[in-house]
């Protein structure tokens, strides 16, 4: 089933944290959610979970407004990690699974399965506070998964993970998606998002400024032609028709420009060692989208972030 966010707005006092936000996460889709601090990612996720209420708009599941019962079963990993420090790992996970409605015997079986899968089964009887930070993160992920959720919402699931744990986490997300679970996660690690996600939404000031399949977004950006010419002067391309801008080896061409003409000009300037079209990475795309009008909005963003931190879940 499809998870949809439609026109959701939310204000903290004077500050508008979300402004008509739309999101679409299909069944079996891994959906990345990126944006600066204070852009509204955490607020949006809390509204999806029902921890926070929206001022306007709605969250839909399978085409109808999501019910509290469904929200209670979403697998959630908050940005601020948290477990009872003095409770034993397995005991705690069983408790959390039962809280989401699992009967005890199924909870126990599921906890055993996930602790093994995440490689922390040896610590099942230890207090959480006795675990290393990395293992605590694995237990935290297990807490989001033990009740076999139909939806996964993960706020910064990769932050603070060691490379091995990043691989384990990626694999788990792919497996859950393969089962048909919609997976929504936020991250600042854009290379990871690019590698892992089917779709991505870029959020800024509480509204989505770009959304779609990662490849589409990249091809929609300004592709640049990289030309490396040995021994040519720095400004060898300045007179070539259709070249709008030169930044070292990267050229920005006008839409109607002929790249073969550029190649001929390059050959005339010297031996060509590299000649390739390069699509922007998600990071470049993100910088581009987010930096537009950033100067005048910097103050607003900061205000929104402060408000979000201070007034979480007012």
């Amino acid at each position, binding site marked *: 089933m499809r998870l949809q966010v439609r026109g959701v707005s939310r204000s903290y006092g004077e500050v508008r944290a979300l402004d008509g936000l739309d999101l679409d996460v299909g069944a079996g889709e891994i959906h990345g959610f990126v944006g600066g601090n204070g852009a509204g990612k955490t607020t949006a996720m809390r509204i999806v*979970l*029902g*921890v*926070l*209420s929206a*001022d306007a708009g709605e969250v839909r599941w399978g085409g109808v407004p999501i019910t509290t019962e469904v*929200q*209670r079963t*979403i697998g*959630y990993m*908050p940005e*601020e*990690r*948290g*477990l*009872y*420090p*003095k*409770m034993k790992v397995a005991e705690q996970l069983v*408790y*959390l699974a*039962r*809280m*989401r*409605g699992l009967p005890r015997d199924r909870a126990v079986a599921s906890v055993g399965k996930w602790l093994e899968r995440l490689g922390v089964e040896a610590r099942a009887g230890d207090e959480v506070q006795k675990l290393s930070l990395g293992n605590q993160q694995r237990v935290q992920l297990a*807490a989001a998964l033990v009740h076999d959720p139909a939806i996964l919402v993960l706020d910064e699931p990769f932050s603070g993970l060691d490379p091995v744990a990043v691989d384990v986490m990626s694999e788990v997300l792919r497996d859950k998606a393969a089962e048909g679970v919609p997976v929504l996660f936020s991250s600042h690690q854009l290379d990871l998002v690019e590698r892992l996600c089917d779709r991505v939404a870029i959020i800024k000031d509480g509204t989505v400024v770009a959304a779609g399949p990662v490849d589409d977004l990249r091809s929609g950006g300004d592709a640049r032609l990289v030309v490396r010419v040995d021994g040519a002067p720095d400004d060898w391309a300045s007179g070539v028709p259709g070249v709008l801008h030169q930044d070292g080896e990267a050229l920005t061409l006008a839409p109607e420009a002929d790249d073969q003409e550029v190649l001929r000009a390059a050959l005339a300037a010297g031996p060509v060692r590299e000649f390739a079209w390069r699509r922007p990475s998600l990071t470049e795309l993100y910088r581009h989208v987010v930096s537009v009008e950033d100067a005048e909005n910097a103050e607003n963003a900061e205000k929104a972030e402060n408000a979000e*931190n*201070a*007034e*979480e*879940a*007012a």
Partner: protein
Amino acid sequence: MSGGMRTVRLIAGRELSTRVKSKGYVIMTLALVVLIGGISVLFKLVGGDDPSKIGVLDGALSQPIAATAQSLGEKIETVTVGSQAEGEKKVRDEDLDALVLSGPVRVVVKKDLGDGLRNTLTVMVRQDALNAELARAGADPAAVGRAVASTSVGVTSLEGADDLKDQRVVLAMVAAFLLYGVLFSAGMMVAQGVVEEKSSRIVEILLSAVRPWQLMVGKVAGIGAVGFIQMLAATTAGVVAALATGVLDIPGGELVGTGLWGLVWFVVGFAMFALLFAATGALVSRQEDLGGVIMPVYMLLLIPYMLSFSLIPADPDGTAAKILSLVPFFAPVLMPVRSAMGAPVWWQFAGLGLTLVTIAALVWLAGRMYENSVLRMGSRIKLTDALRSAK
């Protein structure tokens, strides 16, 4: 709704099982049982209720000693010993408190003579001397004795005497101490538990699975059971020890009644204070900040406790005592105190009624404060922010 109650039970069950297993709780409960039960045992030991045991060489002395002791309210047991040497050995071995020799009456003790025994024996020898003088003067000592014994001072009590007042005061102070102590320690468990969930940040995961009211009610109910077990253990120990040792002259039914009222007041008092402790605990994100916000709530508990051993015992039926014991936050400590002091039972029900109304209001107020505050991290949340309507 049944799912909602299942969740509350699950939360309460976790609070109960993790807390009753903690070493601190077990030690504290045992200490209370020993302390409250021990009060009676202590009274029994120092109260001199054990009869003094004295030896006599001349069996004829037993009867006058026993008669004098009875008239003075002393408990003395006499045994006849075969010889002075045997008696002195028993005194030295502390089998006997004293050995009384006749002839002129003399007493042999190990170190010195206790007040009760000294008094009894002194009265006895003086009576002997008096009887001898009366006989010499031609009067009949037995007739004089009867005439003296039949006279007494007539007392008219304007408000009715309470021979048991001292004992009732002790009972009241024990009840007040128990209620204050257990209400406070269990209340702090609630506040610290709320802060623990905030400071460890697990609260956001919990609230993604359950409603804030379920979390708050489950916590209050679970810790309430934890406190109730402690209260029940200490009360039972106190009542059983008092009945078994017989140190109190208060009727057993009255004693058990005070114990039961104490338990009832713990339940309603805890419900009331726990809601306040939970709501104020939710205002802060770190255990270090808890002391400051909890102070006003603590005062609501401390003031009636202080009144319980100052104002109430001095004048248990005064207007101030009556009015203060009805004040909702004071009632859980002051009403059992008045019950122990013998106040009519309808006062308890009046106090209960007012307290239950207060609890209903607090469920709404504390629920709102908790819900508005529990997900907000960082500095202490202003009361006005916590109280404003949730959006």
